[in-house]
């Protein structure tokens, strides 16, 4: 089982990237996508906007009686969709929400039950506290991919994430395995992001070109892989899936030898 966490600044396109990646990977693998964002909208394009009950909603409603069928939904091409959920805006603690949701999945032995080949954690924004570091801890994701554009704030967030992950390098946590450039048509965007990647010791593994197909697909409640499989941007996501699998499988292989 390969476990991957996707991080990046809020609004940078993490959920779009993650759900398209899940859809692309689902052509050959059994995939589970876990949205770690209180907005609970990570998987909506895999579920045709079908409403989903979050793990925290179900814990609140059913307490210890929550079962996997209450929180795991099957989406496009068999992708298993889970949303951690979060607190009522303005109260509670979003970090604790992620901790509770991931612990509940572990307690219910979700991975043993569904046996996905790939688990994708789509994590909200920066690694601001313990809760947001949960997906990269030992036993959770082994690989972190950071989504960024060439915009200053996106790069600033990417740098913070990279440093946070690096801080935990002695603990057996996940490592940054690559940068995904989600283009925003910023001047010299590739060069700027390439410079950031070089300075932080990472590589850009894929450019996702800007395309209005993403918005049109989202309006339909779909990923571009489902709605416009022959589009250029669908090809970018397919290529991204292939590259990510090469990186992860290579590391799995190295671990074995």
């Amino acid at each position, binding site marked *: 089982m390969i476990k991957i966490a996707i991080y990046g600044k809020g609004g940078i396109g993490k959920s779009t990237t993650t759900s398209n990646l899940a859809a692309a990977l689902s052509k050959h693998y059994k995939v589970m996508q876990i949205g770690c964002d209180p907005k609970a909208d990570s998987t909506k394009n895999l579920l045709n906007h079908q409403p989903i009950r979050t793990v925290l909603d179900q814990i609140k409603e059913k307490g210890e009686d929550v079962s996997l069928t209450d929180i795991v939904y099957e989406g496009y091409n068999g992708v298993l969709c889970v949303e951690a959920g979060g607190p009522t805006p303005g109260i509670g*603690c979003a*970090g*604790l929400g992620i901790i509770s949701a991931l612990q509940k999945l572990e307690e219910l032995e979700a991975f043993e039950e569904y046996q996905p080949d790939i688990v994708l954690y789509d994590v909200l924004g920066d690694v601001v*506290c*313990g*809760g947001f570091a949960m997906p990269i801890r*030992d036993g959770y994701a082994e690989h972190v991919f950071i989504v960024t554009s060439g915009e200053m704030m996106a790069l600033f967030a990417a740098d913070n994430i990279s440093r946070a992950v690096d801080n935990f390098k002695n*603990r*057996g946590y996940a490592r940054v395995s690559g940068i995904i450039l989600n283009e925003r048509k910023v001047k010299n965007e590739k060069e700027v992001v390439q410079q950031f990647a070089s300075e932080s010791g990472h590589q850009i593994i894929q450019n996702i070109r800007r395309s209005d197909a993403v918005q049109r697909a989202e309006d339909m409640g779909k990923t571009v892989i489902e709605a416009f499989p022959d589009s250029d941007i669908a090809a970018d996501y397919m290529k991204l899936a292939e590259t990510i699998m090469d990186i992860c499988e290579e590391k799995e292989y190295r671990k074995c030898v």
Partner: protein
Amino acid sequence: MCVDHCFEKTLNYTSPGHGGWGIIRVAALVPESHLMFICPSACFRHGALGAIQHGYKDRTSYLYITPADVVTGYDNVILEGAEELLSEDDTIKVLFLFVPCIDDFIGTDIDSLARQVEQKHPGITVRACHMNPIAAETKKPPLVTTIQSMLSTIQTEEPASELAVNLLGSFAPIDPESELFSFFAAYSCKVRQMADYDRHTDFCELGKSKYNLVTCPAGKFASRYMDKHFGTVSVISMTSYEIEEIREIYRQWQKLLETDSCALTSFDLEAEEAKTRAAILQTKETLKDIPILVSDSAVVRPFSLAKALLGYGFNVTEVIAQDALEGDKEAYQYLLENYPSITITQPRHHRSARRENFSTHAVAIGFEGAYLRQSDYVVDLSADEGMYGFQGIRRLMDMLEKAVTQKADLRKMIEEYGAVV
């Protein structure tokens, strides 16, 4: 007797008679262990007092954290604290890092910190523990996770294949007079208990035993862990005071041990049973119809004990139990149907604070019932400690007889037992 709603969830009342083993006493069963509590200064005061009371003061340390630490995270404070402790005390072989509910909220990765300390100190086993009462009603309450942490210190390279049985559940050791020991000895099967060991390396023997005998619910979690991690085979044979049930437990174990091609050498089950029946008759003769109250602070399955005592002809008038546990529900139903006059009282129900006193001329089995009903006579028993098999019944009979010889000094009994309220 209540019929449909014996058990209510209400505002809780905690009597001075309530209490059992606290987390410190349980974790300290691991030999050569030290417990470091990482918490604000107001947390764990109760545990600290319990540690002093039970003589574990030198095996516990407190690392205080401040509100600023909570906001900024305090991984380094923990690492420095553990370092300071281990540099000053070279007798520690196992270090438990206990964190409170706060760490559930802020997400301290205490397991990872434990590994870091362990890597820096080869030869010392370091484990994370959670003293988080907020998880009390979840599937992983503090006692369960603490037991798992304790068992996870067991290091064994050999599979669990030695002809030996671990007694899991009761933290106090079973009375060595119990026929349980001669029964297993007759099959050349060793008996091991957590409380048997003074050295951690010897404690690890528990991971080599082929079998676990689970004597009470706390042992179920332990046995699940051991079955999964060491490959033990667990049999749930709860402490019982019913002759037929005890006979059945031994039959079940006979069958199991015979699969190991072991022959029973000498164990007279019939003689044990006959001695027990004689003891019951004698005690019944002494107690006559004095009312008996059975409390769940004394035994894990109070309804089963009440059923057994009623079957032997004793006058059980009240069961004081917060709930009917899984292995006790059948007996609870039996009492509802066959003894409708028996009162069932929840000790932690807010109404129990009134301490209604119908008559003090009664024997209470357990401190909590004794406190609530102010009974003259008290059987000094907590959580089935030391009790098992036919000898357990005989010992209970002996305790009942001794109890009615003089009016009890309940306060002294509770203090001597060191119940953690």
